């Protein structure tokens, strides 16, 4: 859900339900890294409701575009983390397998 003014597209607040610090902090980090963003932050109005408000202010681009772009960036980061991790685990298992075979008389 997005709250913002119709005239000024570059600043708006996004209210996400069923979310907490897990996603909000990571999104805030990727938003901050975007050079088009002048201000971004998140808040949780009440800890009992699972609702997060993310505020984005940009240097002119529509805020929803920038928000979507940073979600995409976070997804790409996750995919890269996953593939690197899988490679590392396979390499480790192969090395361990080779060591185990060498130790056998």
């Amino acid at each position, binding site marked *: 859900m997005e709250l913002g003014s119709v005239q000024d597209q570059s600043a708006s607040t996004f209210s996400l339900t069923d*979310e907490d*610090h*897990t*996603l909000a*902090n*990571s*999104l*805030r*980090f*990727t938003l*901050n*890294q*975007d*050079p088009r*963003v002048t201000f971004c932050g998140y808040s949780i109005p009440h800890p009992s409701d699972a609702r997060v408000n993310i505020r984005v202010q940009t240097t002119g681009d529509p805020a929803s575009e920038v928000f979507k772009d940073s*979600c*995409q*960036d*976070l*997804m*790409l*980061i*996750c*995919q*890269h*983390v*996953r593939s*690197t*991790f*899988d*490679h*590392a*685990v396979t*390499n*480790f*298992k192969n090395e*361990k397998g080779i060591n185990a075979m060498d130790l056998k008389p």
Partner: protein
Amino acid sequence: MAKVPIWDLPDVPTGELPPHIQLQRTRVFCKSDAPTNTENIQYSGAYASMGVDNSLRLDQFRSNFKVEVMRLNEDDMEFDMIGIDPSIANAFRRILIAELPTMAIEKVLMANNTSVIQDEVLAHRLGLIPIKVDPRLFDYMSENDVPNEKNTIVFKLHVRCERGDARLTEKRRLTVVVLIFNWLVTEWYFKMAMVCYAVTSDELKWLPNGSEFPLATENSASNSTSKPKTYTSFSCSQDSLPQFSKNPITLKHPDIIIAKLGLGQEIELEAHAVKGMGKTHAKWSPVATAWYRMLPEVVLLQEIEDEKATELVQKCPTKVFDIEDVGKGKKRATVARPRDCTLCRECIRGEGWENFVALRRVKDHFIFTIESTGALPPEVLFTEAVKILEDKCEG
């Protein structure tokens, strides 16, 4: 005056940060009272006046990011992630603890419980037992769903402590003989000596055909010819499903003591396990725990020799420092194992030691440790956690 090209003058921004700011950006300083400099400079324009671009370039991230696995067994693993931000590392940790689904016992149907353990305490204990099954093979069950073979696992427990179930040891027999004087006390002691039939978790038997307890219906007479309705409606036996025919569903640890029974006490119950997330209740958490810490960095600011060196090596409880013989009988202290440092700050306790040793943490190098409870191996757990974060972004 020598002519210096304009690009080499000292105050022209070269595109690199001066070393002290670079240090501030990438390290947490751990002083003797508290860590300082812990915030991460995330703003993309933070170093714009220096000509350095602090924004996230995906290619830069891709080239800098590394994972190294240190230790990996069936139950736990330790690996390093280099080049990632703490907010994302924390997101992975939170997902590992709270949002990865597992199977755990939720409903317990009690038929008979004459033991000293109350019904609800027994049910609580059963819920916490880890079940060795892949939760991805099952669906969630909501309140309106009928329990069927896709979303429930049924276990049965029926034990009774008889007089013949001797877990009686030789020592106890001797004690009985010695107390033969007082016959009443002996009788009581003999009976008590029989007590200790411990119900272990391997007594829980998996029922692939579903529940065996019949539902109480109003017109039981008319249903006497057809199959009695039970608490679950399994359309086919779980045994016949391809994933379970070779590996039957068992519990991870067969030696967990669930209850202890005295003479003549009996427990008969049926337990239904469903899929859930750690957010709802901790029994559904697939990790015993998962944590990360930043890589410690120990730097000797000055040369430390001879007595001070021996003193330093003795001070550290995790043996981070080592003595190196430089020759001519002089000893020098070196940092041998900075990874083992637990930041107990023993080495900077006392007068003046802070000028010799600097304790720091590297901000983007995380040492992750994951201990699984057994449902899934830890590397699979981490991969699932990353997938869940991706799905959240997509939504």
